[in-house]
């Protein structure tokens, strides 16, 4: 006779480890299969304290709001006022971050120039030099001066509207770059003076200076070559923002560009992206503090980048003391990167729209992060430029909406007092009160 009681015995429910998750185990297996770390593009994907953890308080009895459809809210900003004869005058405080020709196609660079120019802002070159598409379609082009000096020449330096000395970036502060051979086309190879098809390494530090004392002299050299006409930006990754900002300013920077760990890269090790550097939110207040301690806040401008997606992010960065923000990944998404319309092709690459980050492999279905002519042909730089302009407009309108609601007729009048934080971590990093309190960690009197 069958014993039915056995079917009523309680079973242990399978429990997935919170430490050895499916993703972690998959990465262990991948590492065991290949013997090499994962290389990818983009910025940190892990959840870190971010602008989403802040809220604006808005106006009420104690603050007087502005009418959204009638009263103006100024968005203009001038960068590089400290030493340059010709500072950069922007209509909006959102700029396009440096992204290289090589990692991006020529038409994609053109689209960035078109969109930025139509919106009244600047775009930035990247490793690999300045292309004609980009210069020709950018009314304000920032020329990056990088450790590799690929494509670097004094003629392009002189036709730039500003120079950005890149010391680090948020995705990989302290790290160099890698452009895999698949993307080293004839044109890319020629511009970088390298054999075609090799893996091109970008150095992690500059070849002809070390430390802030040298940097000061390097900046002098660049100013002398360009006749003191254009601003010199110094871009740093988010590591020790107070000290690095102080040293950049001491070295003579007109503008400090500070990039947090959510900022993207064309390619580096995943372990680097996820485990080195500070969240953008944690960078801003120490950098602003450094500028204030030097008596140079607003005289040396601060540009923040790394995970800026919405007008709310723009407004929050400005409220914390930034003068402008830079967008990279968001600009690529606006152009069409990771668009679900290419889902079937993302699937073939073993990924899905929104998660595609193998930009370094050059197989981008959207035709943006590639040098393959057939893929590049999918991307229309005129349409891309239009989309980017639209997106920049929306960012600006959103930021203006918030500023007016806080009672400001100028975006740059936003201030930390307009904000509160939803978490203790965000309160500590942004140095704004935890929502419903007048306290944040580190504030005296607790």
């Amino acid at each position, binding site marked *: 006779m069958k014993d039915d009681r056995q079917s009523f015995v309680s079973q242990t429910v399978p429990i997935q480890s919170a430490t050895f998750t499916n993703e972690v185990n998959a990465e262990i297996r991948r590492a065991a299969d290949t013997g090499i770390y994962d290389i990818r593009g983009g910025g940190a994907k892990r959840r870190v304290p971010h602008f989403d953890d802040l809220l604006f308080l808005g106006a009420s009895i104690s603050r007087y709001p502005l009418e959204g459809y009638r009263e103006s809210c100024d968005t203009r900003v001038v960068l590089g006022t400290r030493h340059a004869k010709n500072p950069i005058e922007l209509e909006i405080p959102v700029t396009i971050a440096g992204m290289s020709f090589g990692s991006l196609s020529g038409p994609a660079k053109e689209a960035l120039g078109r969109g930025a120019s139509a919106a009244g802002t600047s775009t930035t070159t990247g490793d690999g030099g300045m292309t004609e598409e980009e210069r020709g379609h950018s009314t304000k082009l920032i020329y990056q001066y990088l450790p590799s*000096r690929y494509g670097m020449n*004094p003629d392009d330096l002189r036709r730039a509207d500003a120079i950005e000395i890149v010391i680090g970036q948020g995705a990989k502060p302290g790290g160099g770059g890698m452009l895999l051979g698949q993307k080293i086309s004839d044109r890319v190879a020629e511009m970088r003076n390298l054999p075609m098809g090799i*893996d091109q390494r970008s150095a992690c530090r500059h*070849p002809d200076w070390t430390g802030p004392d*040298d940097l000061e002299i*390097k900046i002098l050299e660049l100013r002398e*070559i*360009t006749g003191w006409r254009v601003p010199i930006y110094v871009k740093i990754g988010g590591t020790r923002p107070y000290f690095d900002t102080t040293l950049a300013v001491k070295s003579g920077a007109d503008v400090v560009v500070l990039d947090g760990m959510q900022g993207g890269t064309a390619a580096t090790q995943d372990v680097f992206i996820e485990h080195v550097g500070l969240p953008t939110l944690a960078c801003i207040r120490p950098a602003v503090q450094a500028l204030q301690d030097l008596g140079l806040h607003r005289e040396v401008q601060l540009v923040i980048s790394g995970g800026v997606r919405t007008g709310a992010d723009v407004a929050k960065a400005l409220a914390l003391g930034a003068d402008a923000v830079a967008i990279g990944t968001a600009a690529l998404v606006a152009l069409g990167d990771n668009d679900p319309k290419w889902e079937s092709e993302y699937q073939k690459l073993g990924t899905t729209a929104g998660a595609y980050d193998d930009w370094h492999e050059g197989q981008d279905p959207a035709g943006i992060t590639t040098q393959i002519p057939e893929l590049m042909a999918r991307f229309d730089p005129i349409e891309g430029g239009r989309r980017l302009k639209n997106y920049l407009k929306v960012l600006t309108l959103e930021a203006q909406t918030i500023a007016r609601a806080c009672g400001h007729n100028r975006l740059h009048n936003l201030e930390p007092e307009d904000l509160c934080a939803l978490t203790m971590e965000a309160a500590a990093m942004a140095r704004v009160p935890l929502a419903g309190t007048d306290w944040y960690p580190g504030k005296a009197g607790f």
Partner: protein
Amino acid sequence: MQTFDLEAGSLRELNEMLHAQKDDTNQTAWEIVNAKGSHAIAVGLDAPIEVTIKGSTGYYCGGMNKLATIIIHGSAGPGVAENMMSGKVVIEGDASQYAGATGHGGLLVIKGNASSRCGISMKGIDIVVHGNIGHMSAFMAQSGNLVVCGDAGEALGDSLYEANLFVRGKVKTLGADCIEKEILPEHMEILKDLLKQAGAEANPDEFRRYGSARKLYNFDVDNVASY
């Protein structure tokens, strides 16, 4: 001959004056006195003029030079002729670190010794050093020729690409992926020509050539110890 006294005039005035010279200038000869280690002297020149500097220079003398000939009657500080595009820079004395760094073209002649990282990331420049060079020279050198009549320090040519390194004396150590290579007739022609242009009285037959083994050109996990 135009003479500029850096004690009497500013660096800005000097460079502005030199930048004002165009291809067809008839003010082709310039002399700078009282250099006294000033930085960024004669940077970004873009005309076929000859600039003679009396005394030693600081950082980046002749940086990003195009077309001009710059002669330093003294020693040069770090980064002399960095990112030179064309023209010629001659140093009668010694050169500090990063001489000719990232240079794309032209000829850099160092009649004394050069310190560390000489020719780092060179991208087409030719460099001739009459004396010795320091460690990590020609690191990640992409193209061009580095000729050393004396000895080379540690890690010569580490991670280099397609540059040719000619050394007459001892090489303390070679860097990753740098190996000795045969001197073919075309290399001998280059070497002889550069020695002649640099006024170096050295027997070309006494040189050895070093270049890339090209094993690190594409990532290979089996080479991980070299990265």
